[in-house]
């Protein structure tokens, strides 16, 4: 009896083993991912793919920290006291093509660019009755804005400025189509070609974008691509290309929108106010500890939970007049990564969660761009009175005396003041490096690597990553690497 029972059980289990499991091989599906067909099949998924592009720009390598940090420490605003070799190399103008930080920077920028390409190509093809043509156009326009912004940052890092050779020099490869699976080996475009594409994307985007006021929620009005943001970026582009009249025109158009005005004090960081033209919206879950850090992790000292890597340089400290609130209300003393005591910025206070928003374009920058464009076109100080009137509110906000035309001996003198105000206002927001380069000034005048930091110096721009040179035979390296 025993035997019969066991035989029966055995037969049963054999049958179970053989016949019950076949289908599972074909039925198992990923649980955390959608397949390609379902990623662009509705308005919801198309919108999600657009948010995915914004999300990618939150990465450390784009607007999560590195972009801003390099823009200030490969310049004279930041004393880099950290020890991470790949960053130290950049600070000391001693970088090599194998620098992993730069390789990652390149990688993640193109990751975001190709995700934008995907949205630009596929959003219009989505078949969803609820997804109107205007909505599709807006999705495409936002992706184009992001693409323009990304190419702008890339061209700043990897090519010599327009001022060196009028923009005929090599910049980065322009990839505008979604990846189909077929590997392409794009060549580097010239700086003029990259700039032309940025202008094209932005001007095409403007008609379909919303204005800030059309977004109800402040975090959307400041954190999504808007008409104001696109025009402000065009103003910056024109400024970098020394097209002063167009820079002036776009800046004026931005400031004409009453969504943008100067804040009365410095509590606007992280607050989505009229100071923000375009600001990446971060929360604790976006840039948490499991990621690669964030702005605050570099700019805050250990006691606040940061690395204490990027302190005020002595030159920047000296540039502030006594009582300047841009120093007194936006800094604190702390212990740096090397154990020394330094002054650190408080623009990005949250080193524990790295949840600080990343300012990309501020109203103050647009004001300063307008002021500079006016001065550049003026022949006399008196003719640039509007520029003086533009910077005076910034000085009042900083608790400083205002200027009159009599304070300036020449337009060059006034220009120097506008640039100095720009430095002090926008310190640690990633713009200093390009402001020096486009004014043909050395990135650094003392310390390790200063001799290589001169205008036009090969090492003032980043190397095309060795990995990319290895894989893509169409790429040529930057000279000096």
């Amino acid at each position: 009896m025993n035997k019969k029972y066991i035989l029966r059980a055995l037969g049963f289990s054999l049958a179970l083993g053989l016949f019950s499991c076949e289908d599972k091989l074909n039925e198992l599906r990923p649980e955390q991912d959608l397949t390609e067909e379902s990623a662009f099949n509705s308005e919801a998924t198309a919108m999600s793919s657009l948010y995915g592009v914004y999300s990618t720009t939150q990465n450390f390598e784009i607007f999560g920290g590195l972009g801003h940090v390099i823009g200030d420490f490969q310049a004279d605003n930041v004393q880099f006291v950290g020890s991470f070799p790949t960053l130290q190399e950049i600070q000391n103008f001693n970088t090599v093509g194998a620098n992993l930080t730069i390789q990652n920077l390149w990688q993640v920028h193109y990751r975001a660019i190709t995700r934008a390409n995907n949205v630009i190509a596929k959003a219009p093809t989505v078949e969803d009755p609820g997804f109107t043509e205007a909505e599709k156009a807006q999705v495409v326009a936002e992706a184009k804005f992001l693409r323009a912004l990304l190419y702008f940052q890339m061209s700043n890092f990897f090519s010599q400025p327009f001022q060196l050779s009028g923009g005929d020099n090599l910049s980065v490869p322009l990839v505008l189509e979604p990846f189909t699976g077929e590997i392409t080996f794009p060549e580097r475009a010239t700086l003029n070609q990259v700039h032309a594409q940025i202008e094209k994307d932005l001007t095409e985007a403007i008609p379909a974008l919303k204005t800030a006021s059309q977004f109800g929620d402040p975090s959307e009005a400041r954190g999504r691509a808007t008409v104001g943001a696109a025009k402000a970026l065009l103003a910056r582009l024109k400024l970098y290309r020394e097209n002063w009249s167009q820079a002036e025109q776009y800046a004026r158009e931005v400031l004409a929108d009453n969504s943008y005005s100067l804040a009365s004090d410095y509590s606007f960081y992280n607050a989505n106010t009229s100071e923000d033209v375009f600001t990446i919206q971060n929360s604790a879950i976006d840039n948490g500890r499991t990621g690669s850090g964030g702005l605050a992790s570099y700019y805050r000292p250990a006691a606040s939970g940061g690395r204490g890597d990027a302190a005020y340089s002595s030159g920047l400290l000296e540039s502030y007049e006594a009582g300047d609130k841009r120093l007194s209300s936006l800094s604190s003393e702390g212990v740096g990564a090397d154990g020394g005591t330094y002054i650190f910025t408080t623009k990005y206070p949250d080193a524990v969660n790295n949840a600080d928003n990343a300012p990309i374009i501020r109203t103050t920058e647009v004001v300063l761009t307008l002021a500079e464009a006016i001065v550049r076109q003026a022949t006399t100080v008196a003719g640039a009175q509007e520029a003086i009137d533009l910077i005076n509110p910034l000085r009042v906000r900083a608790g400083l005396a205002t200027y009159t035309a009599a304070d300036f001996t020449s337009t060059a003198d006034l220009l120097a003041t506008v640039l100095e105000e720009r430095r002090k206002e926008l310190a640690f927001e990633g713009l200093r490096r390009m402001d020096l380069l486009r004014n043909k000034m050395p990135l650094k005048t003392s310390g390790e690597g200063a001799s290589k930091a001169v205008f036009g110096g090969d090492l003032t721009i980043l190397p095309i990553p060795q990995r990319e040179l290895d894989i893509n035979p169409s790429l040529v390296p930057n000279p000096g690497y």
Partner: protein
Amino acid sequence: MKKRLLFSLFIVLVLAVPAWAQQSRTVNGKVTDQSSGQGLPGVAVLVKGTTVGAATGADGTFSINVPGENNTLVFRYIGYTTKEVAIGNSSSINVSISVNDKQLQEVVVVGYGTQNQRVSTQSVATVDALSFKDTPLTSPQQLLQGQAAGVQMTNSSGVLGAAANVRVRGVSSITAGGQPLYVIDGVPLNDGGYSFTQGASSGLNPLLNINPNDIESMSVLKDAAAVAIYGSRGANGVVLINTKSGSKGQKTQVNVDYFTGVSEATNQLKYMSAEEYRTFRTAVANARGTAVPSFGNGVDSYDWVDGVTQKGSISSYSLSARGGNDKTTFYVGGVYSDEEGFTIGNELKKLSGRLNLAHSVSDNVKIGVNYNLSNSDMRRVGLENSTAAPLTGAYLQSPWVTPYGPDGNFQNTGFIVNSIAQDALTINDFNLMRSTGNAFAEITFLNDFKIKTDWGIDFVETDAKYRDPDILSPGGYGYRSNIADNKWLTTNTLNYNKFFDGHTIGALVGHSFETSRFDDMLVEGSGFASDDLPNVGSASTPLSTSATGSEWALESYFGRVNYDYNSKYLLEGTLRRDGSSRFGANKKYGTFYAVSAGWVLSEESFLQNVGFLNFLKLKTSYGTSGNDRIGNFAYLGLFAGGSGADYNGKSGLIPTTVPNPDLAWEETAQFDITLNATVFERLDIEASFYNKNTVSLLASQPYPYTTGFASATRNVGEMRNRGIDLMLTSRNITRPDFEWTTSLNMGFLKNEILSLPDNKDPEGRNFISGSTAQRAIEGESLNTFYLVRYVGVNPETGNAEWLDKDGNVTTTYSTANRVVAGSAIPDFTGGFTNRIRYKAFDLNTFFNFSYGNKVLIDGLRFTENMLSAFNKSTDLLDYWTPENRDAFAPALNSPTLPNFAQLSTLHLQDGSYLRLKNVTLGYTLPQNLVAKSKVLSSARVYVMGQNLWTLTADNFRGPDPEVSANGGSNQVAGESFFALPQPRSITGGVNLTF
């Protein structure tokens, strides 16, 4: 050549079939086990001097026709002493035979069964319990080092519980998993990543929860004949672990083992004192005209390396019992061990219990269960590749920074974590629970058939808990992570064994289905009201709330047929067909096979008179196996959501992989020829030559980043592993009171990349990068270092100098000058063991060695960086001055100084070593003394030293040449980033048997 060999074997086989004898008489009888009296099925009954034979039935009875003149029967059974009985005039003969321990060792565990080593045509290296029973170990992983030719095992780090890099006859994959498949009592172990990024960069030892005392034998399946039965998972070798069982009618034997010991680091890197550091950095700053950096108050100093190291400790208590009656056999084993590493904050406690039970329901029905439940509790330390690891931080921390502030309390030391405060205040706990086991039933019927159904599970549950206090992370920070990886499988086999007239035929067919589900959950938060709130639930800001899951399934059909004629001519064929959920519809199924043949030359009459030759066998095999260890859905183009894709509170989607519906198994074809011999009754020789070719390699084809993707998994490329395995065992002295055995095993390996996807270096060779320093290059090995060559400091100028691509000396460092600089794969590795027993004393020494490989001590790039704020190697004090021209480091004002620490051959070292891995001295108490105790049957005390002595290459500048910081990574071998060196330990213990 191999085809011709197979053909000639076949011819020999056909010609050798002799004519049958004519006259005969019938003899009947029964064969029983001497100790239990039970009938033994399947015993070979042979008529001596003829080819006539029969096998016993299920109850042990037999019937045989004996040709005319012959008068002796031979009874042969695996694991039993062969017995010869004169027939005389009787027509009925009953025989009892007894277990032979020595013969038992000749049984080799193979996939889905066992074989007699003498007639097996598979290449299997066996590590049996006898070879390690006197050695205290806490993980069976260590048993794979230097014990089996062709198995290269490299410890990745001295961190407790770190995975080792195990390669069987070289690695057969580039991107897909390259570690062998571990199978315990027929249950293939799950091999997911269970470790939240802590400890060694290599992840956790997959055998962490296995108690070495429970192991009866470990078999490493090496050639195609052995691994083809594991089909799509066999290409990187298979390690079969069989656990202990009791014997029928055995008096219950109880074993108690206890050992305890201490450990310390074998070696450390050099580092400066605070005084040296301040002087050096001041000199650098002055020479370069830069500001002298801040050194705090200028007088503080702290020796961080000393502060984070301690005397490690280990103690282990184990108890086991085995025995059985005529129907039931059992083994129970339990162990508790407690280890503390030689760096602070690193502890491992293990508790494990096993029950193996088998019961004969009747003469032909047997059921049983093997079950192991284990629990490991760890206190972990930060990832070695981060400044949160105690020793990494200790080498890098400026020596004037102190763990305590002026107020005497711990202070936050910033980017380089205060690991002394961490040890005291941070919770970093990890718990791993694992239940592995199987239940089976087997029925023997019609004498020759056996059907078996086997159901197995491997349930892994992990729980990681982390909590930083306010001082280390303002407001506090914590996470909790749970992972479950639960597998079940069923294996159903039918066996047929038939012996007749000298022919033995064995056949196996089977079906198995295996599926596993991996789930993980993570919650992470910051902002705690107090350090006294340990759980994430008390955090004010949630950082992560994640739960993911994934599942795979594998369905297989397999079969094996073997044939032997008179234990002289051997043939075997294997076939397996696997279907996997991991591949697309186009490539869901794969078929793998092997054929093998052997010839026992020593059974031939022409070799019978060669006195010194006791055994000689030549065997050869050819076949295929595969590898399925890629992600579960790598064939689909995927878009992920979650917290990696969201923006401003809205859910996002990001593309993560490129679709590839044609993604298929990679396939490894292996040829093997092996010679086994025993000469002078004391020397065993095994020599194998093998050639493994892997085609359609699952490789991450690197994409230009301008595609938006870094790489995609493709079936591209071809790689060859070719080598020789050599094992020699010599029983030098075999007297009753004096035994001395020497064994040597060596594995020679040459790995070569034959082709790769189109991705050319400046020399026009395709390559795939593994790390910044290492790549697979066509025509070179998988682990080729590709570096700028460093020359030294020019005695005239004080500049550091490198070679450019053409070999000209240059003071410019450029990554464009990188060239092939050596391989991380050794020319040969192996082990050398001596066991001596003299009267009551036993002495066991074991050396292991590695030769011809390079290792990259990557941490030197940081400790030899002359500009950074990190602490530095004292080697830098030997910098160039006009008075010190033969210097290690460049002049302090040299323009080459900033590049001195750039990655170059300066950091690449000769990784060859010879290490006294283990020496054990034991003393067995005299029997008369033991007998007085009434309960004890034997007692032994011993002392063991591990890693007591290491011979490295001249000028080796790392802490330890035995390093593989990336653990089981295929593409990155022999690199170290402050990986903990192996511990040097002294252990003492006692074994008692009751």
